[in-house]
Protein backbone atom coordinates (compact mmCIF):
# COMPACT_ATOMS: atom_id res chain seq x y z
CA UNK A 1 0.00 0.00 0.00
CA UNK A 2 1.22 3.50 -0.75
CA UNK A 3 1.00 6.33 1.75
CA UNK A 4 -2.00 7.71 -0.09
CA UNK A 5 -3.76 4.33 -0.02
CA UNK A 6 -3.34 4.15 3.75
CA UNK A 7 -4.67 7.65 4.25
CA UNK A 8 -7.65 6.95 1.99
CA UNK A 9 -8.68 3.83 3.92
CA UNK A 10 -8.40 5.66 7.24
CA UNK A 11 -10.43 8.62 5.93
CA UNK A 12 -13.09 6.24 4.58
CA UNK A 13 -13.25 4.44 7.90
CA UNK A 14 -14.31 7.72 9.56
CA UNK A 15 -11.93 6.96 12.42
CA UNK A 16 -11.96 9.96 14.74
CA UNK A 17 -9.29 10.88 17.24
CA UNK A 18 -9.89 9.28 20.65
CA UNK A 19 -7.89 11.84 22.63
CA UNK A 20 -10.89 14.09 23.23
CA UNK A 21 -11.46 16.34 20.26
CA UNK A 22 -12.59 13.69 17.76
CA UNK A 23 -10.66 15.03 14.79
CA UNK A 24 -10.74 12.64 11.80
CA UNK A 25 -7.44 10.74 11.89
CA UNK A 26 -6.97 10.25 8.13
CA UNK A 27 -7.52 13.92 7.44
CA UNK A 28 -4.97 14.89 10.05
CA UNK A 29 -2.39 12.68 8.33
CA UNK A 30 -3.22 14.23 4.96
CA UNK A 31 -2.27 17.69 6.26
CA UNK A 32 1.42 16.79 6.46
CA UNK A 33 3.07 18.55 3.50
CA UNK A 34 4.31 16.00 1.00
CA UNK A 35 7.10 18.19 -0.34
CA UNK A 36 8.73 19.15 2.96
CA UNK A 37 12.45 18.34 2.93
CA UNK A 38 12.43 17.98 6.73
CA UNK A 39 12.14 14.72 8.66
CA UNK A 40 8.65 13.89 9.87
CA UNK A 41 7.55 12.48 13.20
CA UNK A 42 4.65 10.64 14.75
CA UNK A 43 4.00 11.24 18.45
CA UNK A 44 1.78 8.91 20.38
CA UNK A 45 -0.13 10.70 23.09
CA UNK A 46 -0.05 8.22 25.96
CA UNK A 47 -0.22 10.88 28.64
CA UNK A 48 -3.70 9.81 29.72
CA UNK A 49 -4.27 11.89 32.84
CA UNK A 50 -7.70 13.46 32.69
CA UNK A 51 -9.20 12.27 36.00
CA UNK A 52 -11.58 9.37 35.39
CA UNK A 53 -9.98 8.28 32.13
CA UNK A 54 -8.52 4.81 31.94
CA UNK A 55 -8.69 3.31 28.47
CA UNK A 56 -5.22 3.98 27.04
CA UNK A 57 -3.54 2.37 30.03
CA UNK A 58 -5.61 -0.73 29.31
CA UNK A 59 -4.40 -0.94 25.69
CA UNK A 60 -0.76 -0.37 26.64
CA UNK A 61 -0.81 -2.96 29.40
CA UNK A 62 -2.83 -5.62 27.58
CA UNK A 63 -1.99 -5.19 23.91
CA UNK A 64 1.01 -2.93 23.33
CA UNK A 65 1.75 -4.65 20.00
CA UNK A 66 -1.48 -3.34 18.52
CA UNK A 67 -0.42 0.19 19.43
CA UNK A 68 3.01 -0.33 17.85
CA UNK A 69 1.43 -1.70 14.67
CA UNK A 70 -0.86 1.33 14.31
CA UNK A 71 2.01 3.69 15.04
CA UNK A 72 4.14 2.07 12.36
CA UNK A 73 1.33 2.37 9.81
CA UNK A 74 0.81 6.03 10.70
CA UNK A 75 4.55 6.60 10.20
CA UNK A 76 4.39 4.96 6.78
CA UNK A 77 1.43 7.12 5.80
CA UNK A 78 3.38 10.35 6.31
CA UNK A 79 6.80 8.91 5.48
CA UNK A 80 8.15 9.29 9.02
CA UNK A 81 11.12 7.25 10.19
CA UNK A 82 10.84 7.99 13.88
CA UNK A 83 8.02 7.98 16.40
CA UNK A 84 7.86 8.81 20.10
CA UNK A 85 5.45 7.28 22.55
CA UNK A 86 4.96 9.76 25.39
CA UNK A 87 3.81 7.74 28.39
CA UNK A 88 2.50 9.48 31.47
CA UNK A 89 4.94 9.20 34.39
CA UNK A 90 2.46 7.45 36.69
CA UNK A 91 1.75 4.65 34.22
CA UNK A 92 4.81 2.59 35.11
CA UNK A 93 3.44 -0.82 34.23
CA UNK A 94 2.20 0.43 30.85
CA UNK A 95 5.65 1.86 30.11
CA UNK A 96 7.34 -1.43 31.00
CA UNK A 97 5.00 -3.44 28.80
CA UNK A 98 5.30 -1.06 25.83
CA UNK A 99 9.10 -1.12 26.11
CA UNK A 100 9.10 -4.93 26.22
CA UNK A 101 6.93 -5.01 23.11
CA UNK A 102 9.24 -2.53 21.35
CA UNK A 103 12.25 -4.68 22.23
CA UNK A 104 10.49 -7.73 20.81
CA UNK A 105 9.72 -5.85 17.59
CA UNK A 106 13.35 -4.84 17.19
CA UNK A 107 14.49 -8.40 17.83
CA UNK A 108 12.02 -9.71 15.22
CA UNK A 109 13.04 -7.17 12.57
CA UNK A 110 9.63 -5.44 12.70
CA UNK A 111 11.32 -2.20 13.77
CA UNK A 112 14.79 -0.92 12.95
CA UNK A 113 16.80 -0.21 9.84
CA UNK A 114 14.90 -2.56 7.54
CA UNK A 115 11.30 -3.10 8.64
CA UNK A 116 10.32 -6.65 7.73
CA UNK A 117 12.75 -6.65 4.82
CA UNK A 118 11.00 -3.73 3.11
CA UNK A 119 13.99 -1.41 3.18
CA UNK A 120 11.95 1.09 5.23
CA UNK A 121 13.70 2.31 8.40
CA UNK A 122 11.62 3.00 11.49
CA UNK A 123 12.56 3.67 15.10
CA UNK A 124 10.01 4.01 17.88
CA UNK A 125 11.17 5.47 21.20
CA UNK A 126 9.43 5.44 24.52
CA UNK A 127 9.54 8.67 26.51
CA UNK A 128 8.35 9.09 30.09
CA UNK A 129 6.37 12.10 31.29
CA UNK A 130 7.07 13.58 34.69
CA UNK A 131 3.76 14.32 36.33
CA UNK A 132 2.25 17.27 34.48
CA UNK A 133 -1.31 16.88 33.21
CA UNK A 134 -0.87 19.66 30.67
CA UNK A 135 1.62 17.54 28.71
CA UNK A 136 -1.39 15.70 27.28
CA UNK A 137 -2.16 18.83 25.28
CA UNK A 138 -0.45 18.09 21.99
CA UNK A 139 1.86 21.09 21.71
CA UNK A 140 2.82 20.89 25.40
CA UNK A 141 3.69 17.27 24.71
CA UNK A 142 6.01 18.40 21.91
CA UNK A 143 7.68 20.95 24.19
CA UNK A 144 8.17 18.28 26.81
CA UNK A 145 9.66 15.85 24.27
CA UNK A 146 12.11 18.58 23.33
CA UNK A 147 13.20 18.73 26.97
CA UNK A 148 11.41 21.91 28.00
CA UNK A 149 8.65 22.92 30.37
CA UNK A 150 5.36 21.55 29.05
CA UNK A 151 3.80 24.85 28.06
CA UNK A 152 1.43 24.75 25.06
CA UNK A 153 2.31 26.63 21.90
CA UNK A 154 0.20 29.10 20.02
CA UNK A 155 -1.36 27.63 16.88
CA UNK A 156 -0.83 28.14 13.95
CA UNK A 157 1.64 26.88 12.99
CA UNK A 158 -0.06 23.53 13.45
CA UNK A 159 2.06 20.50 14.31
CA UNK A 160 1.37 18.92 10.90
CA UNK A 161 3.52 21.71 9.46
CA UNK A 162 5.77 22.64 12.38
CA UNK A 163 5.72 20.17 15.25
CA UNK A 164 8.50 18.28 16.99
CA UNK A 165 11.88 20.00 16.46
CA UNK A 166 10.01 22.33 14.05
CA UNK A 167 9.35 19.41 11.68
CA UNK A 168 6.01 18.09 10.34
CA UNK A 169 4.43 15.98 13.08
CA UNK A 170 1.30 13.93 13.61
CA UNK A 171 0.08 13.48 17.17
CA UNK A 172 -2.50 10.83 17.90
CA UNK A 173 -4.00 9.25 20.93
CA UNK A 174 -3.16 5.64 21.87
CA UNK A 175 -6.66 4.33 21.18
CA UNK A 176 -6.81 6.07 17.79
CA UNK A 177 -3.60 4.39 16.65
CA UNK A 178 -4.53 1.02 18.11
CA UNK A 179 -7.57 0.99 15.81
CA UNK A 180 -5.52 1.53 12.65
CA UNK A 181 -4.02 -1.95 12.23
CA UNK A 182 -7.38 -3.78 12.15
CA UNK A 183 -8.84 -1.09 9.85
CA UNK A 184 -6.08 -1.55 7.28
CA UNK A 185 -6.36 -5.31 7.55
CA UNK A 186 -10.15 -5.55 7.26
CA UNK A 187 -11.00 -2.44 5.30
CA UNK A 188 -12.90 0.77 5.97
CA UNK A 189 -16.34 -0.79 5.40
CA UNK A 190 -15.71 -3.43 8.06
CA UNK A 191 -14.91 -0.72 10.61
CA UNK A 192 -17.87 1.54 9.79
CA UNK A 193 -20.11 -1.54 9.89
CA UNK A 194 -19.20 -2.15 13.54
CA UNK A 195 -20.93 1.04 14.57
CA UNK A 196 -24.62 1.42 15.17
CA UNK A 197 -24.73 4.89 13.64
CA UNK A 198 -23.71 6.12 10.20
CA UNK A 199 -21.91 9.23 11.32
CA UNK A 200 -18.99 7.64 13.16
CA UNK A 201 -17.34 4.34 12.52
CA UNK A 202 -16.26 1.41 14.58
CA UNK A 203 -16.09 0.49 18.20
CA UNK A 204 -14.98 2.60 21.12
CA UNK A 205 -13.41 1.79 24.45
CA UNK A 206 -15.70 3.06 27.15
CA UNK A 207 -14.38 3.28 30.70
CA UNK A 208 -17.26 3.46 33.12
CA UNK A 209 -16.51 4.49 36.69
CA UNK A 210 -18.17 5.90 39.77
CA UNK A 211 -21.31 4.61 41.47
CA UNK A 212 -22.10 1.77 39.05
CA UNK A 213 -22.38 -1.95 39.74
CA UNK A 214 -19.73 -3.05 37.23
CA UNK A 215 -17.17 -0.33 36.57
CA UNK A 216 -14.52 -1.12 33.98
CA UNK A 217 -13.34 -0.75 30.39
CA UNK A 218 -15.73 -2.07 27.72
CA UNK A 219 -15.25 -2.17 23.95
CA UNK A 220 -18.65 -1.26 22.52
CA UNK A 221 -20.14 -0.45 19.11
CA UNK A 222 -20.31 3.26 18.40
CA UNK A 223 -23.60 5.01 19.01
CA UNK A 224 -24.93 3.33 22.15
CA UNK A 225 -26.65 5.75 24.49
CA UNK A 226 -25.25 6.59 27.91
CA UNK A 227 -28.36 5.02 29.42
CA UNK A 228 -27.62 1.73 27.70
CA UNK A 229 -23.98 1.90 28.69
CA UNK A 230 -24.72 2.61 32.34
CA UNK A 231 -27.77 0.43 32.91
CA UNK A 232 -27.25 -2.46 30.52
CA UNK A 233 -23.53 -2.77 30.10
CA UNK A 234 -22.25 -1.59 33.48
CA UNK A 235 -25.07 -3.16 35.48
CA UNK A 236 -26.82 0.01 36.67
CA UNK A 237 -26.40 1.75 39.97
CA UNK A 238 -24.13 0.14 42.53
CA UNK A 239 -26.61 0.86 45.26
CA UNK A 240 -30.05 0.23 43.70
CA UNK A 241 -31.70 2.30 46.43
CA UNK A 242 -29.99 5.41 45.19
CA UNK A 243 -31.05 7.05 41.99
CA UNK A 244 -28.70 8.35 39.36
CA UNK A 245 -28.05 12.02 39.97
CA UNK A 246 -25.71 13.05 37.17
CA UNK A 247 -23.11 11.78 34.73
CA UNK A 248 -19.75 13.35 33.95
CA UNK A 249 -19.62 12.10 30.39
CA UNK A 250 -15.96 11.95 29.37
CA UNK A 251 -13.36 13.09 31.84
CA UNK A 252 -13.77 15.82 34.41
CA UNK A 253 -13.56 18.69 31.92
CA UNK A 254 -16.84 17.78 30.18
CA UNK A 255 -20.07 19.57 31.10
CA UNK A 256 -22.24 17.46 33.41
CA UNK A 257 -25.41 15.66 32.22
CA UNK A 258 -28.68 15.10 34.05
CA UNK A 259 -30.62 11.80 34.07
CA UNK A 260 -33.02 12.95 31.34
CA UNK A 261 -30.14 13.74 28.99
CA UNK A 262 -28.80 10.22 28.64
CA UNK A 263 -30.76 9.04 25.60
CA UNK A 264 -28.70 10.52 22.81
CA UNK A 265 -26.06 8.42 21.11
CA UNK A 266 -22.78 8.56 23.00
CA UNK A 267 -20.61 9.74 20.13
CA UNK A 268 -18.70 12.90 19.29
CA UNK A 269 -21.48 14.74 17.44
CA UNK A 270 -24.67 13.57 19.11
CA UNK A 271 -23.53 14.35 22.64
CA UNK A 272 -22.80 17.93 21.59
CA UNK A 273 -26.52 18.38 21.02
CA UNK A 274 -27.13 18.07 24.75
CA UNK A 275 -24.37 20.58 25.40
CA UNK A 276 -21.56 18.28 26.43
CA UNK A 277 -18.79 16.21 24.92
CA UNK A 278 -17.75 12.61 24.64
CA UNK A 279 -14.22 13.68 25.55
CA UNK A 280 -12.18 10.61 26.31
CA UNK A 281 -15.19 8.28 26.33
CA UNK A 282 -15.00 7.55 30.04
CA UNK A 283 -18.25 8.44 31.83
CA UNK A 284 -18.35 8.75 35.62
CA UNK A 285 -21.69 7.97 37.24
CA UNK A 286 -22.82 9.94 40.26
CA UNK A 287 -25.60 8.84 42.60
CA UNK A 288 -28.08 10.76 44.74
CA UNK A 289 -26.53 11.87 48.00
CA UNK A 290 -23.36 13.19 46.36
CA UNK A 291 -22.59 16.84 46.98
CA UNK A 292 -22.12 18.56 43.63
CA UNK A 293 -20.33 21.52 45.19
CA UNK A 294 -17.77 19.23 46.78
CA UNK A 295 -17.35 17.35 43.52
CA UNK A 296 -16.73 20.60 41.68
CA UNK A 297 -14.33 21.79 44.36
CA UNK A 298 -12.16 18.73 43.90
CA UNK A 299 -12.19 19.08 40.14
CA UNK A 300 -11.17 22.73 40.31
CA UNK A 301 -8.46 21.95 42.85
CA UNK A 302 -6.99 19.59 40.29
CA UNK A 303 -7.12 22.11 37.44
CA UNK A 304 -5.84 24.98 39.55
CA UNK A 305 -2.89 22.79 40.54
CA UNK A 306 -2.16 21.70 36.95
CA UNK A 307 -2.30 25.05 35.14
CA UNK A 308 0.98 25.53 33.29
CA UNK A 309 1.03 29.16 34.35
CA UNK A 310 1.45 30.77 30.94
CA UNK A 311 -1.91 32.53 30.62
CA UNK A 312 -3.09 34.78 33.43
CA UNK A 313 -6.83 33.96 33.18
CA UNK A 314 -6.12 30.26 33.66
CA UNK A 315 -3.33 30.56 36.25
CA UNK A 316 -5.14 33.06 38.47
CA UNK A 317 -8.73 32.20 37.58
CA UNK A 318 -8.35 28.53 38.40
CA UNK A 319 -7.17 29.34 41.88
CA UNK A 320 -9.96 31.88 42.40
CA UNK A 321 -12.58 29.35 41.34
CA UNK A 322 -11.15 26.78 43.72
CA UNK A 323 -11.17 29.26 46.61
CA UNK A 324 -14.68 30.56 45.93
CA UNK A 325 -16.12 27.07 45.61
CA UNK A 326 -14.27 25.88 48.73
CA UNK A 327 -15.76 28.79 50.64
CA UNK A 328 -19.26 27.89 49.51
CA UNK A 329 -18.74 24.25 50.34
CA UNK A 330 -17.58 25.13 53.84
CA UNK A 331 -20.77 27.18 54.40
CA UNK A 332 -18.90 30.47 54.38
CA UNK A 333 -19.92 31.66 50.94
CA UNK A 334 -22.35 34.41 49.96
CA UNK A 335 -24.86 34.75 47.16
CA UNK A 336 -22.41 37.08 45.45
CA UNK A 337 -19.88 34.24 45.47
CA UNK A 338 -22.24 32.11 43.43
CA UNK A 339 -22.41 34.76 40.73
CA UNK A 340 -18.65 35.16 40.89
CA UNK A 341 -18.20 31.56 39.77
CA UNK A 342 -19.95 32.31 36.51
CA UNK A 343 -18.22 35.64 36.11
CA UNK A 344 -14.73 34.26 36.66
CA UNK A 345 -15.29 31.11 34.59
CA UNK A 346 -16.66 33.03 31.64
CA UNK A 347 -13.55 35.17 31.61
CA UNK A 348 -11.23 32.18 31.42
CA UNK A 349 -12.97 30.32 28.61
CA UNK A 350 -11.71 31.37 25.20
CA UNK A 351 -8.95 33.54 26.64
CA UNK A 352 -6.12 31.06 26.91
CA UNK A 353 -3.54 29.61 24.52
CA UNK A 354 -4.84 26.06 24.84
CA UNK A 355 -8.11 24.34 25.70
CA UNK A 356 -7.09 23.95 29.35
CA UNK A 357 -9.03 27.18 29.91
CA UNK A 358 -12.19 25.43 28.74
CA UNK A 359 -11.39 22.32 30.77
CA UNK A 360 -11.32 24.59 33.81
CA UNK A 361 -14.40 26.69 33.13
CA UNK A 362 -16.82 24.17 31.58
CA UNK A 363 -17.35 22.13 34.73
CA UNK A 364 -17.83 25.28 36.83
CA UNK A 365 -20.38 26.79 34.47
CA UNK A 366 -22.31 23.61 33.80
CA UNK A 367 -22.47 22.42 37.43
CA UNK A 368 -23.70 25.85 38.43
CA UNK A 369 -26.26 25.97 35.65
CA UNK A 370 -27.68 22.54 36.38
CA UNK A 371 -27.37 22.45 40.18
CA UNK A 372 -27.66 26.09 41.17
CA UNK A 373 -30.05 25.32 44.01
CA UNK A 374 -27.38 23.18 45.65
CA UNK A 375 -24.96 26.10 45.73
CA UNK A 376 -27.74 28.31 47.13
CA UNK A 377 -28.54 25.77 49.86
CA UNK A 378 -24.89 25.78 50.99
CA UNK A 379 -25.05 29.55 51.36
CA UNK A 380 -28.47 29.63 53.06
CA UNK A 381 -27.80 26.84 55.52
CA UNK A 382 -24.22 28.04 56.08
CA UNK A 383 -23.07 24.44 55.82
CA UNK A 384 -22.99 21.55 53.41
CA UNK A 385 -26.51 20.03 53.31
CA UNK A 386 -24.89 16.64 52.82
CA UNK A 387 -23.17 16.91 56.16
CA UNK A 388 -19.59 17.68 57.14
CA UNK A 389 -16.71 16.36 55.13
CA UNK A 390 -16.98 12.67 55.91
CA UNK A 391 -14.08 11.29 57.90
CA UNK A 392 -14.92 7.63 57.96
CA UNK A 393 -17.60 6.90 55.38
CA UNK A 394 -18.85 3.38 54.89
CA UNK A 395 -16.72 1.98 52.13
CA UNK A 396 -19.32 -0.43 50.80
CA UNK A 397 -22.26 1.85 50.33
CA UNK A 398 -19.73 4.41 49.20
CA UNK A 399 -21.26 7.79 49.95
CA UNK A 400 -17.97 9.47 49.88
CA UNK A 401 -18.06 12.29 47.44
Amino acid at each position, binding site marked *: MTSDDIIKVVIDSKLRGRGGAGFPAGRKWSFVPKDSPKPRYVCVNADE*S*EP*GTFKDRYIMERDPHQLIEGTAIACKSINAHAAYIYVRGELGLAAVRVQQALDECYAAGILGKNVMGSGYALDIYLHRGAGAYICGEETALLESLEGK*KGQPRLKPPFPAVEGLFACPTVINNVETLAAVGPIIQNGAAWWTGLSRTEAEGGTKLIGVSGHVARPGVYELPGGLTLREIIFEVAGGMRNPDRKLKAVVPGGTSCPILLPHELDTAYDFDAIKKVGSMMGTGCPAVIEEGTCIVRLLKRIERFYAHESCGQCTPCREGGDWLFKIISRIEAGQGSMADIDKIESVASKIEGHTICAFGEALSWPARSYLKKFREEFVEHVKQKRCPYGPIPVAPV*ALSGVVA
Partner: protein
Amino acid sequence: MGHSSDFDPAEAARLALEHSHQEGALLPILHALQGRFGWIAPEAVAWVAERLNLSRAEVHGVVSFYHDFRDHPAGRQVIKVCQAEACQARGARHVTAQLEERLGVKLGQTAPDRSLTLEPVYCLGLCGNGPAALVDGRPYADLSGRGLARCLKGVGR
Protein backbone atom coordinates in the same frame (compact mmCIF):
# COMPACT_ATOMS: atom_id res chain seq x y z
CA MET B 1 13.72 2.72 45.45
CA GLY B 2 17.14 1.99 46.87
CA HIS B 3 18.63 5.40 46.21
CA SER B 4 21.05 7.44 48.23
CA SER B 5 20.50 11.14 48.33
CA ASP B 6 24.06 12.43 47.93
CA PHE B 7 24.83 13.68 44.45
CA ASP B 8 27.83 11.99 42.86
CA PRO B 9 29.09 13.54 39.59
CA ALA B 10 30.91 10.40 38.45
CA GLU B 11 27.77 8.32 38.90
CA ALA B 12 25.70 11.04 37.20
CA ALA B 13 28.02 11.05 34.21
CA ARG B 14 27.65 7.30 33.89
CA LEU B 15 23.84 7.59 33.96
CA ALA B 16 23.71 10.52 31.53
CA LEU B 17 25.94 8.83 28.98
CA GLU B 18 23.09 6.73 27.66
CA HIS B 19 21.09 9.86 26.80
CA SER B 20 23.80 12.23 25.69
CA HIS B 21 23.34 11.58 21.94
CA GLN B 22 19.59 12.15 22.15
CA GLU B 23 17.76 15.36 21.26
CA GLY B 24 15.66 16.61 24.16
CA ALA B 25 17.84 14.75 26.65
CA LEU B 26 16.98 16.89 29.67
CA LEU B 27 13.95 14.96 30.91
CA PRO B 28 15.46 11.50 30.45
CA ILE B 29 18.61 12.62 32.29
CA LEU B 30 16.60 14.13 35.15
CA HIS B 31 14.56 10.92 35.39
CA ALA B 32 17.77 8.90 35.58
CA LEU B 33 19.27 11.16 38.25
CA GLN B 34 16.14 11.19 40.34
CA GLY B 35 15.83 7.41 40.02
CA ARG B 36 19.35 7.06 41.40
CA PHE B 37 19.56 9.85 43.98
CA GLY B 38 15.90 10.25 44.86
CA TRP B 39 15.83 13.98 44.19
CA ILE B 40 17.43 16.68 42.06
CA ALA B 41 19.86 18.48 44.35
CA PRO B 42 21.15 21.99 43.56
CA GLU B 43 24.55 20.45 42.63
CA ALA B 44 22.71 18.21 40.18
CA VAL B 45 20.99 21.20 38.58
CA ALA B 46 24.32 22.92 38.07
CA TRP B 47 25.91 19.76 36.75
CA VAL B 48 23.14 19.10 34.20
CA ALA B 49 23.09 22.74 33.08
CA GLU B 50 26.80 22.65 32.40
CA ARG B 51 26.63 19.38 30.57
CA LEU B 52 23.70 20.29 28.28
CA ASN B 53 24.87 23.86 27.76
CA LEU B 54 21.73 25.30 29.39
CA SER B 55 21.43 27.95 32.05
CA ARG B 56 20.75 26.81 35.60
CA ALA B 57 17.53 28.79 35.44
CA GLU B 58 16.35 26.67 32.50
CA VAL B 59 17.11 23.43 34.29
CA HIS B 60 15.60 24.68 37.52
CA GLY B 61 12.53 25.80 35.55
CA VAL B 62 12.04 22.30 34.20
CA VAL B 63 12.65 20.63 37.56
CA SER B 64 10.09 22.85 39.25
CA PHE B 65 7.55 22.58 36.42
CA TYR B 66 7.16 18.80 36.57
CA HIS B 67 5.57 17.53 39.75
CA ASP B 68 7.56 14.28 39.66
CA PHE B 69 10.93 15.97 40.01
CA ARG B 70 11.79 16.72 43.62
CA ASP B 71 13.94 19.61 44.76
CA HIS B 72 14.22 18.07 48.20
CA PRO B 73 14.67 14.44 49.22
CA ALA B 74 11.57 12.28 49.72
CA GLY B 75 11.22 9.25 51.93
CA ARG B 76 12.87 6.02 50.84
CA GLN B 77 9.47 4.73 49.80
CA VAL B 78 6.88 6.92 48.09
CA ILE B 79 3.20 6.08 48.36
CA LYS B 80 0.84 8.03 46.10
CA VAL B 81 -2.83 7.64 46.86
CA CYS B 82 -5.49 8.68 44.35
CA GLN B 83 -7.77 11.53 45.35
CA ALA B 84 -9.71 11.87 42.08
CA GLU B 85 -13.41 11.43 41.42
CA ALA B 86 -13.82 7.75 40.61
CA CYS B 87 -11.76 6.73 43.64
CA GLN B 88 -13.69 9.19 45.81
CA ALA B 89 -16.86 7.43 44.72
CA ARG B 90 -15.36 4.19 46.00
CA GLY B 91 -14.07 5.33 49.37
CA ALA B 92 -10.76 7.14 48.75
CA ARG B 93 -11.22 9.50 51.65
CA HIS B 94 -11.65 6.73 54.16
CA VAL B 95 -8.76 4.77 52.67
CA THR B 96 -6.52 7.82 52.84
CA ALA B 97 -7.39 8.23 56.53
CA GLN B 98 -6.59 4.56 57.12
CA LEU B 99 -3.26 4.86 55.34
CA GLU B 100 -2.40 7.98 57.31
CA GLU B 101 -3.11 6.12 60.52
CA ARG B 102 -1.31 2.91 59.64
CA LEU B 103 1.74 4.63 58.20
CA GLY B 104 1.91 7.37 60.80
CA VAL B 105 2.19 10.24 58.31
CA LYS B 106 -0.30 12.74 56.99
CA LEU B 107 -1.04 13.08 53.29
CA GLY B 108 1.63 15.28 51.73
CA GLN B 109 4.20 14.53 54.43
CA THR B 110 7.41 12.57 54.83
CA ALA B 111 8.01 10.51 57.96
CA PRO B 112 10.58 12.10 60.33
CA ASP B 113 12.90 9.10 59.89
CA ARG B 114 12.55 9.60 56.10
CA SER B 115 11.35 6.03 55.67
CA LEU B 116 8.36 7.04 53.56
CA THR B 117 6.41 9.83 51.90
CA LEU B 118 2.62 9.81 51.46
CA GLU B 119 1.36 11.95 48.59
CA PRO B 120 -1.88 12.68 46.75
CA VAL B 121 -2.17 11.86 43.05
CA TYR B 122 -5.07 12.62 40.73
CA CYS B 123 -6.16 9.50 38.87
CA LEU B 124 -3.95 6.53 38.12
CA GLY B 125 -6.12 5.12 35.38
CA LEU B 126 -7.43 2.46 37.78
CA CYS B 127 -10.81 4.15 38.13
CA GLY B 128 -12.72 0.91 37.51
CA ASN B 129 -11.25 -0.76 40.57
CA GLY B 130 -10.33 2.03 42.89
CA PRO B 131 -9.52 3.35 45.37
CA ALA B 132 -6.03 3.06 43.96
CA ALA B 133 -2.47 3.86 45.01
CA LEU B 134 1.10 3.49 43.82
CA VAL B 135 3.88 2.22 46.06
CA ASP B 136 7.21 3.14 44.43
CA GLY B 137 5.45 3.03 41.10
CA ARG B 138 3.71 -0.33 41.67
CA PRO B 139 -0.07 -0.07 41.37
CA TYR B 140 -2.49 -1.30 44.05
CA ALA B 141 -6.26 -1.25 43.55
CA ASP B 142 -9.42 -2.11 45.54
CA LEU B 143 -8.05 -0.42 48.66
CA SER B 144 -11.42 -0.34 50.38
CA GLY B 145 -11.42 -4.12 50.09
CA ARG B 146 -8.61 -6.62 50.03
CA GLY B 147 -6.18 -4.27 48.32
CA LEU B 148 -5.41 -2.33 51.49
CA ALA B 149 -3.64 -5.25 53.17
CA ARG B 150 -1.69 -5.93 49.97
CA CYS B 151 -0.72 -2.31 49.68
CA LEU B 152 0.45 -2.16 53.29
CA LYS B 153 2.43 -5.32 52.70
CA GLY B 154 4.01 -3.57 49.70
CA VAL B 155 5.10 -0.84 52.08
CA GLY B 156 6.42 -3.45 54.48
CA ARG B 157 3.80 -2.89 57.19
